[in-house]
């Protein structure tokens, strides 16, 4: 765990100095939300559509920034250095924790922007949305991290990332859209227990699969 935390700390310091991910994610969020606002104009959109758009923005923002965790190490040639310094599982844990932090901060900004700019982004049961948001973010980070590790080894990284991520993130995003709708309708947590169970299972499966497979992905 100490290795993972050391890698997390290194990635944070590196991100603060280089601003690879922060700049691209920040710009992506601003541009996407602006495009949605311009395209809607004065039209009133219903709350369900607002919830759907929220997760669409989350999905594409994740696609634009989360691959950096491994791609930057491969592109700079430091992946080999990491291989010589720690166990594969420590590397995955460090990168996963970094992506969790990045996803939470990025999605929090998107949520704040949506609540400020879209009047229909309202929840009758905010607690349910917060549950879905937290568990969903962990799922997005878990799957994005392992996909990033896979595509970092490939030639056409930029194209491959959304292509690989789409089928893997689709069940998660669909469940999150459904839960957001239910939170807007005012369902209780127990009413939405099935969807929440799906989210928990998704997270557990993705994290377990990532730990089992990472050694094979990480080493040539």
């Amino acid at each position, binding site marked *: 765990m100490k290795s993972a935390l*050391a890698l997390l700390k*290194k990635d944070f310091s590196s991100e603060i100095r280089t601003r690879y991910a922060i700049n691209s994610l920040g710009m992506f969020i601003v541009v996407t939300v602006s495009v949605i606002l311009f395209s809607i104009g004065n039209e009133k959109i219903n709350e369900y559509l607002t919830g759907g758009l929220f997760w669409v923005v989350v999905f594409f923002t994740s696609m634009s920034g989360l691959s950096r965790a491994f791609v930057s190490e491969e592109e700079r040639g430091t992946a080999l250095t990491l291989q*010589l310094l720690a166990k594969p599982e420590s590397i995955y844990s460090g990168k996963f924790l970094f992506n969790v932090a990045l996803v939470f901060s990025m999605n929090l900004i998107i949520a704040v922007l949506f609540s400020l700019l879209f009047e229909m982004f309202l929840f009758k049961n905010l607690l349910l949305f917060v549950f879905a948001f937290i568990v969903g973010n962990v799922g997005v980070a878990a799957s994005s991290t392992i996909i990033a590790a896979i595509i970092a080894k490939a030639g056409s990284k930029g194209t491959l990332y959304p292509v690989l991520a789409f089928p893997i993130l689709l069940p998660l995003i669909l469940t999150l859209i459904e839960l957001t709708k239910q939170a807007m309708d005012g369902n209780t947590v127990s009413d939405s227990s099935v969807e929440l169970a799906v989210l928990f299972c998704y997270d557990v499966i993705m994290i377990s699969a990532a730990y089992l497979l990472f*050694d094979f992905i990480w080493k040539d």
Partner: protein
Amino acid sequence: MTDGTSRIREYKIEINNLTKNFGRRLIFKGIDRVYDRPGIYGISGPNGSGKSTIVKIFCGILSPNSGTITHHSGASKIESNVWYRHIGFVSPYLVLYDEFTAEENIAFFSAIREINFDAGRSDFLFEKFGIIDRKNDLVKTYSSGMKQRLKFIGALYHNPDVLIFDEPTSNLDIAGKETVYNVIKELSKEKIVFLASNDREDIDLCSEVLDLNLYKSK
């Protein structure tokens, strides 16, 4: 090394029938060796003969297509996922973090290896490799020779049992080469040191040389 952290431990690397292909191209075949005594062991061969490939296999970064390689410390076999703790590695294709200072790089290596950062040991090595005055400068401001010296510091910091140097003197000036040769000779008294190189001067240091050209036949 005379900083008080050196120790002699029985370490053994055993290689059995090691074979590596990249696709249909055979790199080497049927290498059998046992390295169980401190000393300088060379790995030679022309460009593309597999010197870097075999040292990566020694470190556990690459897997062989067939054959086995095992590391032993005393009587116990070391699991391949922790070989990195026993190895110090230097090569031209090993890259440091440019956005950090030299000392921050070493502190990070120490932290990720779960070792408490020892400023005294770090300074001792910076002094030894002649870059103590630049330890607080960003690595991106370093010349390639200085980066090579810093890689040696990173490789020696955790006092490993095995040192693997792939083209150790590349990018180094005459003074740098001299320092490296002295360090290698000193280390070889108590550790297993591998030198993968084409350079005659490097190979002349070795007590035994593995010529990869002899392991090419199908």
